[in-house]
């Protein structure tokens, strides 16, 4: 059985049908990419699956359990992590604290114990700090461990989001344009990073415009256009698909 099964998923914003009857399955352990022109509904699809939006119709199943309509924090409990196309970093915190927040659900969040500084809680926090520092090293941010988030560059913050998502120890991670706005060198680094994440056993769902990266990394690709599923298949199948070529290059190409 596939890890994530999406069936007939739609969402309407007033008259705009941002996602229409999209169905697909994602097997565990693969890199699955969602591509399509700007406005095709890729981010909306991510927002639907990660609970930020509630679908108008359709169903989403994670490991057989219906998860549509659940809130993002309920999905986090089930091991779904994500990053954002437009950065969502807590600028009021240090870089490493942003990563530590990712481990929220694995910690004792008791208010009274926290206020009274229970030794167990403090010890766990120190361990977590080391763990977070390792994660920052893993995504290539070792030199930023003691930096404030608002003092970091855009490219570094992109990777900080990935580190935060990984701190959840997710089963499934959604990366929304991790290479957008990055220079070619940084893009290659993110490419390697996504590969490392996938190799560590996390299922990766990727939205990305960098075709080289998508073709290089993806086991399967979903193509969206105007909110509808245009094609789905391996990189090779997608590359040859006439509909996809038409959508990307114009009908007469």
């Amino acid at each position, binding site marked *: 059985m596939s890890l994530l099964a999406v069936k007939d998923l739609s969402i309407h914003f007033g008259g705009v049908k941002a996602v229409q009857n999209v169905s697909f399955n994602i097997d565990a352990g693969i890199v699955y990419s969602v591509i399509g022109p700007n406005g095709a509904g890729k981010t909306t699809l991510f927002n639907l699956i990660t609970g930020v939006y509630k679908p108008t119709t359709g169903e989403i199943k994670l490991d057989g359990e219906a998860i549509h309509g659940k809130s993002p924090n309920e999905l986090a409990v089930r091991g779904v992590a994500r990053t954002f196309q437009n950065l969502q970093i807590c600028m*009021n915190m240090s870089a490493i*604290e942003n990563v530590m927040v990712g481990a929220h659900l694995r910690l004792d969040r008791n208010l009274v114990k926290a206020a*009274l500084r229970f030794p167990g809680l403090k010890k766990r926090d120190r361990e977590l700090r080391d763990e977070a520092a390792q994660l920052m090293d893993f995504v290539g941010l070792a030199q930023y461990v003691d930096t404030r988030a608002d003092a970091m560059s855009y490219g570094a913050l992109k990777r900080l989001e990935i580190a935060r998502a990984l701190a959840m120890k997710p089963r499934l991670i959604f990366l929304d344009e991790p290479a957008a706005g990055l220079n070619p060198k940084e893009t290659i680094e993110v490419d390697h990073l996504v590969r490392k994440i996938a190799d560590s056993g996390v299922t990766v769902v990727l939205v990305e415009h960098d075709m080289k990266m998508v073709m290089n990394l993806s086991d399967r690709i979903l193509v969206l256009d105007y909110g509808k599923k245009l094609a789905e298949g391996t990189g090779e199948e997608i590359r040859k698909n006439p509909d996809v070529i038409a959508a990307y290059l114009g009908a007469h190409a």
Partner: protein
Amino acid sequence: MKKNVYNGLYLVIAILLVLPFVLPNSFYLDLAVRMAINAVIVLGLNLLIGFAGQISLGHAGFLGIGAYASAVLPTHFGWHPLLAMGAGAVATGILAALVARPIFKLKGNYLAMATLGLGIIISIALRNEAQWTGGPDGMPVPAMGLFGFELSNDKQWYWVVAILLSVSVWASLNLIDSPFGRALRALHGSEVASQVVGVDVVRYKVAIFVLSAVFASLMGSVTAHYVGFVSPNFADFFHSIELVTMVVIGGMASVYGSLVGAVLLTALPQALATFEGWETVVFGAILMLSMIFLPKGLVPTLAAKFGKGE
């Protein structure tokens, strides 16, 4: 969070220990007690406003509930003052939770509006229920007794309040640098980011709102017993604004800023007494100027200027 944040606490404790021996007379001791009481309230309020990013314009209302619980319950029903204080705190907590839950389910910052209304309602209720509260004239509060020992003079109150303040500073510092505190700051920084890592945003906002309301209620009770008298002014809208101002001037999301804000704004009316009738105007002008030149508040601005930043 740096390792040295607790150094400030040692400084606070040192100042509190030395203070009663250097203050020239009881006027200043009284001022110090009131500063410390306000500091505890502002600490709680800053957890809500500065750290969690939610604004309450009705905290004086919660303070009023605590104060009147300590006045009415022992006077009319013969309750022990400590029990009355606890009852006030519990009632405040329940009220705060009941109001906050539906509000926080809405997107956007509606808490300010709701608490504004709530504070005014509480203040009107206290004014109108004259048979219980003495109405606009207020009412006397029986003395607070602790284990057969009666808290009567300012010196004793000073030590009680000094301990409360030290513990509150310590607890606030602990809380901020904990999983709970990080979740709070995260939902302030990016609500959606905190949600996708599993933070139940509504629950955390309600929790911190209730906590800060209960702080205010408890300190309302303390004030009532200390002053020996309560009046509806305790719960006044202007008092709520004053508390928010202390947070903002001292520095949002700064524990020590809360203390500085409370100390300065408690002292300010005394210092401005020479302006006779114009205090409020001067008060407002100082507020405006500090917003223009120190938008982050005193302590964070100075920390950024003279230290490596907070």
